[in-house]
């Protein structure tokens, strides 16, 4: 694009934003000449430049708008209709600008509609008055009683407005010539080069340490300080005042008022608070959502406000301030606050929580449900908000950049949403640690404390059957070795966590410890994103180059926590305050191998079922009695094709081998696509043999194969296979355990042993499931929790005289004769210690075998 045209587009885009803002101000204060003069000047400049560049549509639009505005200056009343019209014109101008930016020419089109309306509005005054700049000293008709107030506000505005009227215009133009526009890329590459400079400097420092050149050292010192300053300055160029993200808000609020029939005033404070450009981009949308929410849900209708004794005009106040390395932004309204009753009712309706769970929750916790996906308390879906897509997006956007969002409210008086975000994403303070011989960077923001268990008697690290626990003052914290999370542990040489350090990490309410071998120092690191190929590794948030030139990976505490299996317990005695949404109970994370075979949709099998993946030459397939076999490790293994449409032909194909211990079979596929791990909801699809159902994997419908069926059909002569029925279903176990720690510890043990596990904290929830007729093969229940526990469940089961009663195994930490006696009286199947995991598995296998023998 032409250089002049490009400059024009960027500059006009800026000034048109200010027209937007100023118009809204003018409407509130129609008698302020300064504002009017500002708008007039902006529109006039746009018009002039357009004419010069031959942009006819823009010129005639701005001309028509200018005509209307010049009449405001002559004293015509500033009506909402007229402002609406000019705002519509501004929108059209923006649209045309965007098109010019993309195509370098003015788009075809007709603006006759707008221009005619503008002319009609201007109609009753002399035409041609727009050509001359009107004398500002012309008297303006003011309604008498308002005079003092208006005069005061005028004075204030004249002082505060950055560009107050004509006299100051020259100086502002002079200031403009002092700044230039620089493309973002230039700054980004400056940033990279400065990083390189820092590295080179560090290398020089290393060399100077070995050699003795005094004069060299002085020069190096200077280089050092200049480099440091340069880095800081370049960082600063990326900073922008937060007001750039606010430019559109006055207009937004005005439009919302018109749409909702409300009267709202927007107050902005701390507009010059600076933050990184990148962060700024990411918070624009959350701002918009929160303001829509405040206007729609928070602020009441004017008549309602009057009835409540409030001023009919509501206020939304946004304020930003620095707060120790982060920026804190409050979005406050003086509306009705949050109706906890409605939120609670909605949460139950949505199945996010049970009434029993709700009873134990604090109001703050209940209020947080508004951040759940698809949650909206508005009875009807309005155009403005209430589509239930807002607040969860706000939360996820903010959390994405390492921030947090919270809400406080006073019933009937308003709500405050507080957003906390880091100043910059590009540079973070990180702790450099080492594990299994490799260094990593851990963002300092998540680290609460460093503990060296060997050196301290009060920080005891104990092992509970393979799991480490750290006793830290009054709490116990689960500890995991970073190397084992990352899969780089060398079992031979791995030191015990006692010999190294434990980094205590806090994420929201979750606290856990990462055991590492060494902790070096804290360093300000420049964050670089990971390659797209590696972005699926959620345990890393990026990489960086350290002072010595080494590349290290930046750990993402959230990703590590997720890999821990979301099973971290809270502090001692603390009840799980944040129960996971109930629907998640049945859909634990699972891994699928996704592949293609024949035509049609992608297919998937549970990765756990696949024992091996081989590449087999199709020519080596032997056909015996109509069935296909391959020779594999001295055995004949039956082979099937995953889709009838496949042409086995020749060449080498991937074959999935699966086995149930006795029988092995292979499935030929065309291509392995991917391995995915997530929560999947497999939906059954009619009576399709060999198909468990379909699931949406990676946003695509995928057929999930039933390995059991294929195994059976590969071995038709096997006794089980002859039945041709569905594959033996896995046993379903209910785990009732109030303590989140034990629940988290035992559920994976049972799952790993091949059971389907439904883990519950409460007796009521357990009874609920059983009453709904959900089948369980056995119940493993804690019998020591205060309040209602496994014994109560067993009693209710007995009292209920159910036909089919799953056997109950009691879990006890202490044991003791009283527990055993009561278990015997209730005819429980067994009593097992919570810490005896093999014992539990044995007891379970025995109990299930007994139950089967009985039926």
């Amino acid at each position, binding site marked *: 694009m032409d250089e002049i045209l490009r400059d024009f587009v960027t500059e006009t885009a800026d000034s048109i934003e200010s027209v937007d803002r100023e118009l809204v101000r003018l409407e509130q204060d129609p008698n302020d000449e300064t504002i009017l003069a500002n708008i007039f000047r902006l529109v006039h400049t746009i018009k002039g430049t357009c004419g010069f560049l031959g942009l006819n549509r823009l010129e005639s639009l701005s001309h028509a708008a200018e005509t209307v505005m010049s009449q405001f200056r002559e004293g015509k009343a500033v009506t909402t209709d007229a402002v609406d019209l000019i705002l519509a014109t501004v929108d059209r101008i923006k649209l045309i600008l965007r098109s010019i930016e993309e195509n370098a020419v003015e788009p075809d089109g007709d603006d006759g509609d707008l221009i005619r309306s503008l002319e009609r509005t201007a109609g009753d005054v002399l035409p041609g008055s727009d050509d001359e700049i009107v004398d500002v000293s012309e008297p303006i008709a003011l309604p008498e009683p308002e005079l003092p107030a208006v005069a005061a506000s005028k004075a204030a505005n004249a002082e505060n407005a950055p560009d107050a009227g004509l006299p100051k215009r020259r100086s502002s133009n002079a200031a403009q010539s002092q700044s230039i526009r620089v493309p973002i890329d230039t700054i980004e590459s400056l940033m990279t080069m400065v990083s390189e400079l820092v590295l080179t400097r560090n290398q020089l420092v290393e060399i100077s340490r070995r050699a003795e050149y005094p004069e060299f050292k002085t020069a190096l010192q200077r280089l050092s300080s200049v480099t440091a300053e340069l880095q800081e300055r370049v960082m600063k160029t990326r900073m922008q005042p937060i007001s750039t993200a606010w430019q559109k808000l006055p207009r937004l609020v005005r439009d919302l008022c018109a749409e909702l029939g409300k009267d709202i005033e927007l107050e902005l404070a701390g507009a010059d608070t600076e933050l990184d450009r990148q962060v700024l981009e990411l918070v624009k949308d959350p701002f918009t959502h929160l303001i829509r929410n405040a206007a729609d849900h928070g602020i009441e209708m004017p008549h309602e406000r009057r009835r409540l004794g409030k001023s009919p005009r509501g206020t939304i106040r946004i304020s930003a301030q620095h707060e120790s390395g982060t920026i804190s932004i409050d979005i406050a309204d003086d509306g009705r606050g949050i109706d906890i009753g409605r939120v609670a009712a909605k949460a139950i309706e949505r199945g996010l929580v049970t009434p029993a769970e709700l009873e134990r929750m604090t109001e703050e916790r209940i209020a947080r449900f508004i951040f759940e996906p698809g949650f909206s308390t508005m009875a009807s879906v309005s155009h403005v908000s209430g589509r239930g897509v807002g607040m969860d997006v706000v939360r996820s956007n903010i959390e994405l950049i390492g921030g947090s969002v919270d809400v406080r409210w006073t019933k009937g008086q308003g709500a405050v949403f507080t957003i906390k975000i880091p100043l910059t994403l590009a540079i973070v303070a990180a702790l450099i640690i080492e594990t299994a011989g490799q260094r990593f960077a851990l963002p300092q923001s998540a680290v609460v404390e460093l503990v060296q268990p060997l050196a301290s008697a009060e920080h005891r690290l104990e092992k509970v059957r393979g799991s480490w626990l750290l006793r830290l003052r009054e709490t116990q914290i689960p500890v995991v070795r970073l190397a084992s999370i*990352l*899969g780089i542990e060398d079992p031979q040489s791995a030191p015990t966590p006692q010999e190294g350090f434990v980094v205590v990490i806090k994420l929201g309410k979750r606290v856990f410890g990462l055991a590492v071998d060494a902790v070096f120092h804290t360093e300000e690191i420049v964050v670089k994103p990971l390659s797209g190929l590696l972005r699926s590794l959620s345990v890393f948030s990026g*990489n960086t*180059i350290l002072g010595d030139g*080494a*590349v290290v990976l930046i750990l993402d505490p959230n990703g590590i926590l997720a890999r821990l299996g979301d099973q971290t317990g809270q502090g001692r005695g603390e009840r799980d305050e944040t129960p996971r949404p109930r629907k998640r109970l049945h859909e634990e994370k699972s891994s699928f191998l996704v592949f293609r075979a024949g035509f049609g949709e992608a297919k998937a099998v549970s990765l756990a079922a696949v*024992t091996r993946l081989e590449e087999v030459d199709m020519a080596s397939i032997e056909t015996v009695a109509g069935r296909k076999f391959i020779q*594999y490790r001295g055995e004949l293994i039956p082979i099937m094709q995953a889709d009838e449409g496949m042409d086995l032909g020749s060449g080498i194909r991937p074959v999935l081998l699966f086995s149930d211990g006795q029988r092995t079979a292979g499935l030929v596929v065309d291509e*392995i696509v991917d391995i995915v791990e997530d929560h999947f909801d497999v939906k059954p699809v009619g009576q399709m043999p060999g198909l468990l159902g379909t699931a949406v994997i990676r946003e695509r419908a995928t057929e999930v194969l039933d390995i059991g069926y294929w195994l059976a059909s590969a071995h038709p002569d096997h006794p089980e296979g002859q039945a041709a029925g569905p594959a033996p279903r896995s046993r379903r176990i209910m785990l009732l355990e109030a303590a989140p720690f034990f629940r988290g510890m035992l559920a994976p043990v049972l799952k790993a042993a091949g059971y389907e596990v439904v883990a519950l904290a409460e007796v009521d929830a357990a009874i609920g499931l059983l009453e709904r007729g959900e089948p369980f093969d056995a119940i493993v229940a804690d019998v020591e929790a205060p309040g209602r526990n496994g014994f109560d469940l067993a009693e209710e089961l007995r009292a209920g005289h159910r036909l089919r009663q799953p056997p109950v195994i009691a879990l006890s930490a202490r044991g003791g004769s009283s527990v055993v006696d009561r278990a015997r009286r209730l005819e429980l199947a067994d009593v097992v210690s919570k810490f005896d995991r093999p014992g539990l598995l044995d007891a379970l296998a025995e109990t299930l075998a007994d139950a089967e023998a009985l039926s």
Partner: protein
Amino acid sequence: MTFVTRLAFEPTESTSLRTDYVTVFIDGQRFGLEIGSVRDVFMAGAVTKVPLAPPAVAGLINLRGRVVTAICMRKLLRLPAERPAPGAMVVGIERGGESFGFIVDSVGEVVSVMDGDCQPNPLNLDPRWASFSRGIHWLSEGLLVVLDIDAMLAPSALAPALPLARETEP
């Protein structure tokens, strides 16, 4: 029945009848990388391993302040490979604003060949190799397999190696 593969060789524009390739050698075989795609050739410094990454991702290399994601060609082609040591030859590629480096055994000269001479992949070519090859040139000194860089950097090219690492007996 047949199924669709994306191996079809796309003829380049008729205006450029010749294409220059940087030749690289992997396990004795000559491969060609289109010269326009190659940003630089360099010797690897320290390679930072990426835990949990697909095995073909050798790690990250600092190349003058740029972080390069290094991919082991031997692993990608399912050839025996050792962990890349500093000094390994790397061919630098830019794709989608990111820097990648292919670790090869050695780098040869640049050859200029007629596009029309490119032969389609033979049917008996190893399917994994075929998925990375856009065709074959017969040079006087031997065959040149033209590498399809986009195919090599596709996530699916790297992903399936994962379960192969599982050493459980069937």
